[in-house]
C-alpha cells in the first residue's frame, strides 16, 4: 500500500540556494517553531559540508540554521538528551534524532554550538521541538572546534 501524498515533492525557495525540492515526508514540524521564530514551523534538513547541514525553513526563504547531529558531541552529550518528551510522544523506546544549532562567526574558528537547546525530532512522526535542557553545565555558546 503506498501513500502517494507522502512521496510528493514539495518545492520551496531558499535565498541562499534557490529553488529546492524535497519529499513531503522529509519535512520536520517544529512545534511552536524555533525559539524566537514562532511563525515558521516546517523545516528540512539539507546536506551541506559534512558534518554540517542546513536546517532550512520551508516557509521563509531567508531563514535557515547551520546544524550538526548531536552525535558529533559524543555519548556524554547524547546521555543528557531527554528520554521522554510528552509533547512529541517520545518515550524511552522512541527513535529520535537530535540536532544542535551552530552559530557561525566571521572568524569561523570561533564558531559555537548551542548544546543547551538542541532540536529533538521524533523521526516517526516528523514532529520536533527545540528543547532547553536543564543541565547547568551545558553552554549556549560551546566552542565548536578544536584548536
Amino acid at each position, binding site marked *: 500500500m503506498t501513500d502517494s501524498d507522502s512521496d510528493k515533492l514539495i518545492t520551496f525557495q531558499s535565498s541562499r540556494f534557490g529553488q529546492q525540492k524535497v519529499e513531503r515526508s522529509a519535512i520536520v514540524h517544529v512545534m511552536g517553531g524555533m525559539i524566537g521564530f514562532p511563525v515558521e514551523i516546517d523545516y528540512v534538513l539539507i546536506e551541506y559540508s559534512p558534518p554540517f547541514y542546513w536546517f532550512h525553513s520551508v516557509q521563509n526563504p531567508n531563514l535557515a540554521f547551520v546544524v*550538526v547531529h548531536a552525535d558529533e558531541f559524543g555519548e556524554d*552529550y547524547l546521555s543528557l538528551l531527554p528520554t521522554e518528551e*510528552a509533547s512529541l510522544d517520545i518515550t524511552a523506546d522512541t527513535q529520535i534524532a537530535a540536532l544542535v544549532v551552530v552559530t557561525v562567526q566571521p572568524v*569561523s*574558528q570561533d564558531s559555537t554550538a548551542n548544546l543547551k537547546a538542541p532540536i529533538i525530532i521524533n523521526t516517526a512522526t516528523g514532529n520536533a521541538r*527545540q528543547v532547553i535542557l536543564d543541565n547547568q553545565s551545558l553552554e549556549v555558546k560551546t*566552542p565548536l572546534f578544536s584548536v
Partner: protein
Amino acid sequence: MLVLTRKPGQSLFIGEDIKVSVMEIRGNQVRVGILAPPTVRIYREEIYTQILEENKEASEFSHLGASELKGALSTWKIRKPDGS
C-alpha cells in the same frame, strides 16, 4: 500586564489548564509551583531570552556566502565536550 497579590499557599489559574502557586517566600526569593500540561513550555525568562538571541544570531550569517562558509567550516575539526 495583570498584577495580582498572593500569599504563600495561594494560587492562580491561567486559562483552564495552568495553575501557578506561591509555595513559599524566603528572604527576597519566591518559590513558585506550576501545574501545566506537558505540552506547555515553562522557562526562566533569562534563559529563554538567551536562547532566543542565540537563535537569531545563528540564523544570520550574511557575512559569509554559502560557498565560503563551506570551505571555512571544513577546515576545522569538531571538538567533543570531554576535550578530545
